[in-house]
């Protein structure tokens, strides 16, 4: 066998071994890579579970609600103090003579509505409503789900006792997960009691034709102006058109800055 034949036979052997190794382990896929892949995916799934559990339990409306309801009176006191001494009639908050109307479309299950009512509405009431610059009209629409209807009915029923805005805030203090069915008769009764409305009367009036009319009126208005999300704000100046208020933020600073611009 010449040297060339020896080299050729060695080459053939190497090639055969290489082909065999490819059949067992495809190119570039040693077994430890599958281990790395599996570990990375398992770590990722574990990380997501931890993030959802930790972040979900550390923030969000439902947790805050649980905390609030476990301390009876806390939310109610805040609700009463926000509106104390401010005229309320039906769905309107503020003096009837206020030249500008701010209309707010809300859903009791909407977490951003809750944020606006709890964080920002007190500032708006203090600086714009008490001073007679604006009045605020509540328009309750169903955006989140069927359970919202029960909340809206209770809100408008409380409006018949001129406690609508207190009721709105008291329900937000109790807000649970969306469509979890947290708006129960018990929650409505306790909210009504807290804000000083007669609970039995709220529950009876909730199914009245007057409340039906309010819901229809708000839904029609929302349809007319293309409102399909909450909270949505609209401004109407004296003799002016109903104009949607675009807000830069729902926090007090951002909201009042947008409101100031609209009032100019």
């Amino acid at each position, binding site marked *: 066998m010449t040297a060339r034949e020896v080299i050729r036979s060695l080459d053939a052997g190497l090639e055969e071994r290489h082909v065999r190794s490819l059949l067992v382990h495809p*190119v*570039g*896929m040693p077994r430890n*890579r*599958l281990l*790395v*892949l599996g570990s*990375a*995916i398992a*770590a*990722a*799934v574990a*990380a*997501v*579970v931890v*993030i*959802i559990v*930790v*972040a*979900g339990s*550390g*923030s*969000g*409306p*439902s947790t805050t609600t649980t905390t609030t309801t476990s301390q009876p009176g806390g939310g109610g006191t805040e609700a009463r103090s926000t509106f104390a001494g401010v005229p309320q009639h039906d769905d309107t908050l503020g003096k009837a003579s206020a030249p500008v109307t701010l209309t707010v479309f809300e859903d009791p299950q*909407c*977490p*951003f509505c809750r944020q606006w009512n709890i964080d920002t509405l007190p500032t708006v009431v203090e600086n714009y409503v008490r001073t007679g610059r604006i009045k605020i009209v509540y328009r309750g629409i169903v*955006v*989140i*789900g069927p359970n919202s209807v029960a909340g809206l009915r209770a809100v408008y029923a409380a409006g018949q006792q001129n406690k609508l805005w207190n009721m709105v805030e008291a329900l937000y203090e109790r807000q649970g*997960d*969306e*469509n*979890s069915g947290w708006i129960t008769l018990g929650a409505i009764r306790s909210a009504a009691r807290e804000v000083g409305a007669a609970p039995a009367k709220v529950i009876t009036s909730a199914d009245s034709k007057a409340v039906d009319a309010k819901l229809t009126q708000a839904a029609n208005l929302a349809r007319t102006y293309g409102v*399909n*999300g*909450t909270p949505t704000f609209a401004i109407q100046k004296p003799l002016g058109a109903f104009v949607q208020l*675009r*807000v*830069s*933020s*729902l926090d007090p600073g951002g909201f009042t800055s947008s409101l100031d611009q609209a009032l100019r």
Partner: protein
Amino acid sequence: MRLRAPIAAACVVGIAIAAYLTYVHYAHTSPVCTTGGCEKVQRSKYAELGGLPVALLGLIAYVTLLGLAFARGMNAATAGVFVAAVGVAFSGYLLWAQLGPIDAICQWCLGNDVTIAVVAALYVVRLLTEESG
């Protein structure tokens, strides 16, 4: 590294979707929507995690994945698989929320689901075929 271009392209699509949804979140505007449920999803409590909009978290993830696409080596490929798998798992959670508690579907979220799945698949192939060293 022949997967660099497709990974980068998919990441750019993901960045565009996440950036748009982040803008919509902070501008308090309504997303362009044909499924009718985008606004409901965008305004649900599932749209935020730890006080941050999930769209912003998605944007950060896609930018990270884009950066890793241009990095060489097994570590970059492994990190890419990890980040993409986090994205897929989180997208799955949000899809569950849309079909369940929120009861509304957002086309942008579905677009993101497909995009992150493609990115994850490409990173898996990259990890299994990346040259060692």
